[in-house]
């Protein structure tokens, strides 16, 4: 009766292959002569990139938890612990701080908060508690932004994000249909929690854009139909650190930066 959750295929299995594949695709369009050289390079993705991918994968899994009939609490707790661990490490080595100091840092705050909300909701759902006021999440978040951020990121430096930017971020999702897919999914999840109706599970699946999960696409910086979700922009944040360690993807990253700029300005 209920869907078995389809875990999006994550081409993470062989990191070597993934990375080379991404590079090849980029070069395929243009410069055939370079391809040969690049193909010979088996670049291992930087630790930060791997870590970021793991974080993204974990967040997706936590989302899927809500789509299950009754989430397996052990699995949710283990995934949430993994997410927390990654975030703590990213905070400690300054990666997180660097992300936060950028202008669209608010988006990453969303993600941290979302993680907590997602974890909380899954437990509360298991508990049988009515999940309070998630439909007013946007409003509350704007009101308690500082408090929330300090709650969720106990180890992260508190970041004061300009409120107008924050509200821009939330409003961004609505007018543009294809942007903020991640946020859209989040809203649907909260709706599901409210309604707790099995039918919305199918809705959730039908509207989650699977191309978001394609790491290849992320690396090449090209998304079909320019469906750049929240997290796609965020994924580029790992690239600054990756740039230092891997100059091969510099051209990709410039393009990603460009796309991020567009996001921020709109």
């Amino acid at each position: 009766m209920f869907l078995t959750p389809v875990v999006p295929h994550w081409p993470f299995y062989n990191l070597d292959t993934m990375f080379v594949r991404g590079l090849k695709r980029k070069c395929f369009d243009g410069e055939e002569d370079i391809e040969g050289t690049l193909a010979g390079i088996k670049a291992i993705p930087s630790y930060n990139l791997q870590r970021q991918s793991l974080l993204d994968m974990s967040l997706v899994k936590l989302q899927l938890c809500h789509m299950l009939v009754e989430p397996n609490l052990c699995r949710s707790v283990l995934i949430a612990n993994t997410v927390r661990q990654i975030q703590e490490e990213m905070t400690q080595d300054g990666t997180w701080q660097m992300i936060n100091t950028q202008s669209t840092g608010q988006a990453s705050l969303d993600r941290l908060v979302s993680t907590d909300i997602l974890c909380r909701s899954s437990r509360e759902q298991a508990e049988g508690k009515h999940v309070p006021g998630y439909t007013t999440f946007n409003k509350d978040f704007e009101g308690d932004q500082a408090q929330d951020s300090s709650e969720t990121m106990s180890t992260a430096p508190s970041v004061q994000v300009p409120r107008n930017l924050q509200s821009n971020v939330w409003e961004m999702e609505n007018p543009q249909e294809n942007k903020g897919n991640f946020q859209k999914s989040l809203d649907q999840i909260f709706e599901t929690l409210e309604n707790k109706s099995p039918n919305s599970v199918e809705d959730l699946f039908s509207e989650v854009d699977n191309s978001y999960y394609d790491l290849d696409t992320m690396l090449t910086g090209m998304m079909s139909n320019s469906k750049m979700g929240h997290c796609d922009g965020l994924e580029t944040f790992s690239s600054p650190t990756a740039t230092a360690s891997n100059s091969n993807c510099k051209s990709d990253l410039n393009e990603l930066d460009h796309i991020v700029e567009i996001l921020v300005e709109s």
Partner: protein
Amino acid sequence: MQDVLWCFSQVKGTIDIGVTEADIISTVEFNHTGELLATGDKGGRVVIFQREQESKNQPHRRGEYNVYSTFQSHEPEFDYLKSLEIEEKINKIRWLPQQNAAYFLLSTNDKTVKLWKVSERDKRPEGYNLKDEDGRLRDPSMITMLRVPVLRPMDLMVEATPRRVFANAHTYHINSISVNSDYETYMSADDLRINLWNFEITNQSFNIVDIKPANMEELTEVITAAEFHPHHCNTFVYSSSKGTIRLCDMRTSALCDRHAKFFEEPEDPSNRSFFSEIISSISDVKFSHSGRYIMTRDYLTVKVWDLNMENRPIETYQVHDYLRSKLCSLYENDCIFDKFECVWNGSDSVIMTGSYNNFFRMFDRNTKRDVTLEASRENSKPRAILKPRKVCVGGKRRKDEISVDSLDFSKKILHTAWHPSENIIAVAATNNLYIFQDKVN
């Protein structure tokens, strides 16, 4: 394990390539004499096999197991308050020791434990006064004489009746049940709580462990398995998702939140990764028959602990260490969350657990030898000796070896059982139940 040659004995279940979800076996358990073997499946059914008497006419058929009783233990339910479906899947079956002609077992799904009585009927009363043989009531005015009903033999009928239903005591999913050695009580454990029941009382249970934090946002650890000590009715253990085992004594306090012993192995810093915690989560804990040791199963290893030593296990066995470099993909496809069980043999000298590709592993604690065997239809000729399998980790693959990348992760052996006194094992491979015995000379 070279001393014992394992042979195929029987396989139960369909050969169809497509597996019906409801037929997937979710638990396997021998009773205390080994005469009965029970399986539970995702469809909420229990099938009990009985070992036939060994006959001198057919000595090679050493007591085959045949279907004895089949019944629907649990039905799917709907929790209207939470708008969630409650699966009928049987998570665990535990037998009670036999005290009379009937057999009793506990079966549980995520929320409700049931006590089933399985009894035989081979006689039927005949000659009632008030009703005729069809059961229709007779007109009392037509009765002219009285007679005493007599019992006449009939074809053997095995009937299962639910004698007790223990419901509404668990908010979270029940993962374990364990019968106490006093035979009067048993415990049921879910993700955050453990309850103690008396078999006679269904409307009350005692909560003996509660690890639910006041603020659920602080939740970082859950209970994964629990079991009573085989001889000491006051002692039990429970394992956690952080790889720890707590031994509790019910005499110390009503709520056993403070453990008497705490078993945890210090982490190996060289093996640390983001997956360290997940693979340390204990999926099963079992006391040895002697009660001196406990065995735990985590994702990659089986460990034996001495109850008197809390700081590390006395033995660690690698089940499939070649998966250590694949943890990320196993995390991606959720296999890393598979819960494998583990079992002792009757003399506590050998331990067994399952793996992927329908492989299962046995470790001899005395000789330190181990073997990998496979449950497959190809090796299913009667009394065919099982050939040890080997996974090739890298480099050149020998002829009979299988490479790690060729393993089928959808074929997982999570549930196995070992006869209490003989070398007979039951291995659940998805929807098939394999029975293997040691070679008869």
